[in-house]
């Protein structure tokens, strides 16, 4: 199994490399950092602009392969280069990554767990009131774009805050700037900031996952092995827990892992709306700022995340399902 995963890792690394290369080339061709300098008032002399662009590694006069090799070389040494304004990408990357991850890890885990639970309950109580309720709510959140959900949540938070008479739920940023409230105070403050954006991510995921989980569980509910388990003397409920649940989770493993991986940038709207300075916000902003290096860096970050998601999916699948375990 270890060797199998190692081989998969190598395959994925190749894919990451290809993805990042394509992202870099595309960004270099589409984005025009020179325009930001030429539009300045007073106009800077062309020689100065050229020198500046070359220093940042984004001069369109330099050959693309040379720029690419230079940037990639830096990346391999752990240096992602500079932003279009000359700042260090490395400094910003880690703080933004942490912001995004805090939001995404909690949101995804919560969304997936609740989604699985809702799906299982829906399936077991198929055609009941609760099943139809879950179905209706799920379809609402699947059909609603996240920016609408997020605005709804904001609106709801306003009502809550008004009713409570103080700010219980924050909807801008991930902490109150300059807050001095000791350890517990800071934690409370951060949690209060976290609730709404996490919910907006989790709700969509829950809705989606619950639909898939419901179907997977329904398949299992009609399966012969569940009947065998009951024939051995288990009650229906025991049979469901001991024999049904794990089997029903198998088809979910790839879905869960990949939805986590693709959320990294998919959460752009959420980050924008709630004013979280995360990766999603960064990539959008850097495209509007014609920032080639940042765009490529975020692409790299995303690709690596998808890589981990793929490995996670393989591991989850193998843990759940002995049929796919390989001894090679």
């Amino acid at each position, binding site marked *: 199994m270890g060797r199998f995963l190692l081989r998969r890792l190598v395959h994925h690394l190749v894919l990451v490399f290809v993805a990042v290369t394509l992202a870099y080339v595309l960004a270099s061709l589409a984005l025009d950092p020179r325009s930001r300098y030429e539009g300045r008032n007073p106009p800077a002399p062309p020689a100065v602009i050229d020198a500046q662009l070359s220093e940042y590694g984004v001069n369109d006069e330099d050959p693309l392969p040379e720029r690419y090799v230079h940037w990639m070389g830096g990346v391999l040494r752990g240096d992602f280069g500079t932003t279009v304004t000359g700042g260090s990408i490395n400094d910003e990357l880690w703080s933004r990554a942490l912001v995004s991850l805090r939001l995404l890890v909690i949101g995804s885990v919560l969304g997936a767990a609740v989604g699985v639970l809702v799906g299982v309950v829906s399936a077991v109580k198929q055609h009941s009131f609760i099943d139809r309720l879950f179905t209706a709510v799920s379809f609402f959140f699947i059909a609603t774009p996240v920016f609408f959900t997020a605005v709804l949540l904001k609106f709801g938070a306003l009502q809550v805050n008004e009713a409570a008479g103080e700010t219980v739920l924050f909807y801008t940023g991930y902490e109150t700037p300059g807050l001095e409230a000791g350890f517990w105070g800071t934690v409370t403050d951060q949690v209060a900031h976290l609730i709404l954006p996490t919910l907006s991510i989790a709700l969509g995921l829950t809705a989606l996952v619950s639909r898939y989980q419901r179907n997977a569980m329904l398949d299992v509910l009609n399966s012969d092995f569940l009947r*065998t388990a009951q024939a051995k003397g288990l009650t229906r409920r025991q049979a469901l827990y001991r024999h049904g649940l794990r089997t029903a989770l198998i088809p979910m493993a790839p879905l869960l892992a990949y939805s986590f991986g693709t959320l990294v940038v998919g959460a752009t709207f959420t980050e924008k709306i709630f004013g979280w300075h995360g990766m999603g916000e960064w990539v959008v902003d850097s495209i509007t700022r014609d920032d080639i290096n940042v765009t490529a860096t975020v692409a790299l970050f995303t690709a690596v995340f998808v890589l981990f998601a793929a490995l996670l999916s393989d591991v989850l699948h193998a843990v759940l399902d002995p049929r796919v375990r390989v001894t090679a």
Partner: protein
Amino acid sequence: MIRQEPTTSRAPEGTAPLFEVRDLTVAFVGESGPVPAVRGLSYALSRGEVLGIVGESGSGKSASALAVMGLLPSSATVSGSVRLRGEELLGLSDRRLARIRGSRIAMVFQDPLSALTPVHRIGDQVAEAVRIHQGVSAAAAHDRAVELLDAVGIPNAAQRARAYPHEFSGGMRQRVMIAMAIANDPDVLIADEPTTALDVTVQAQVLALLETARRMTGAATVVITHDLAVVAGIADRIVVMYAGKAVESGPVVPVYADPRMPYTIGLLGSVPRLDRPGRPLTPIEGAPPDLARLPQGCPFVSRCPVNVPVCRTIEPALEPVARSDRRAACHRRGEIAFGRIGGAPVFPLPEIASAREESPRDGRPAVLEVRQLVKRHPITTGVVLRRRIGTITAVDGISFDIREGEALGLVGESGCGKTTTVMQLLELAAPEEGRVSMLGRDIASLSRDGRKHLRREVQVVFQDPFASLDPRLPVGDIIAEPLRAFGVSLDRRHGRVRDLLDLVGLSAEHANRYPADLSGGQRQRIGIARALALEPRLLVLDEPVSALDVSIQAGVLNLLEHLKVHLGLAYLFVGHDLSVVRHVADRVAVMYAGRLVEVGDADEVFGHPTHPYTQALLSAVPIPEPGTERQRTRILLDGDLPDPADLPSGCRFRSRCPLFARLPPERRRRCSDVDPPLEPRSTGDHQSACHWARDNPILPAGAGRSRTGRSDTD
């Protein structure tokens, strides 16, 4: 004892039946109201007794078993009474019933592939059955599980207990099911289609094991099956179900010898029998009624050749047949005796096409000639870059030919390579090794056009009539499709479709219907009509009747027989059911692990099999006649087919060969050193591949009788 009607007073304690089902009814929720699945089934069993419940799909036989165990979905309504040692089981809570399930009533299901949880180890699943009811420690339960696995004949049980279900073969999985069923010494054992989907040799093993299990536990056993031959071998009593009701019951011997309900007569007449080749089959026309819209009167009336007006108005009750402990649900049960009514057979023998004047086999041209055909599958590894790490030889140098107007039956267990052979032939591509010629032309030398031209001559009918017809096309278009592919004009297509429908026994109005509106038998007829559209000379029939109920299967088999004679077709008939092959084939080729082990005239091969494998196969096929069936001795083969990647040296059958086991060591050496070639046996072109082959008639007398009109080569 089986009592079919509720007795007026309860029998005194001690003589009360061990297990008693009375007036059991099951109804499912349908689109328009409840659909009855079981309509008043009653039976009773005493210790050690075996009851066979026989019926076709939809007869309610499985639903009745699940109802007894409380395993039906909650939407089903169940009424009546199920008593185990006098204790009523219906209406118990799931929790109380769970304590009885698996300990006092155990069940063995069909299709052991899906009946075991794929994610748990075999040993754990058996141990669970022990732990639930016996409250022992995990370690003790595991030890007991290994003991049980050993008892049901799983070699190397301690180690195999750690394996998962997908690492077991079908037969082994069914053994595991039985191990779980006997884990707690049940009073009642219910086996629902325990051998369906298993190969005959494995079926024989499993039936023998069920018998052992019954003896070990003394359990009263209910065997539910569609296979009359299986019941003939193991049951003491039989209940025949039709449209949710028992229509005939009694001890097996008299019921088989002298059935009183026309349905039972029809069923027995429609089963092809290994010991009675050449006897025409009597199919039951029509299809079982739709349970959601049961007609008034007897549910069998529309298919019954001897119905009288009262049958359309009053449904006959299951009532005693004069002076016996048998019962039948037929208004005319008193008039029927030994399958005849008023001197005439209830099901008149169909007009069997008598064979045309046939020239001797040698004089007829070969339609298909296969010489030393080899097909290998690579075993590869890697996801992006595929590497070949080994080879499986699925077909290893087989040779046979089919002459004009002749049916060759290709038989063997699943995994022996017969389907691979057929697919290779149908591809019309040059084989990797060997030579295939069709209608005298070598396939390897064909041009594109030549290949297309040849396709007209070779057509195929597939196994599954549900999957092999496009559900979105009306029947007429399905049949006309091959004609369109060959550019036949629209007008002529219409006429041809009508002719073809007529030819396969359907009417012209079927052309506008969709496959979903038709029964399995009708669909298979459409598959045959489609195959015949281009007037082929060779029809490849890949298990054409194995997905059909017996009563329907007989009609299709008769049709095939008729078509062969009238159109002068040649058949390559692939099958695992030897009785069916016996019925259809003029010649037989027996395949084992990619090789042909015995080839020859059907009468010769079935009557005087010389290869130990053929002998074992034939001995494993049950015969639907209790008297004969119980006197036969079975040659039980050990284990399963060898791993095709790791075949034994010399003779491939050596690892399972009962003859090899009895040979003195110096003779054995020959088997392990030299791969036996096909060699001619006594008469004609009968060949077999065994160093120590000898004639050993397996079947009861009469088996070797030749069909009238069938040509013998010598």
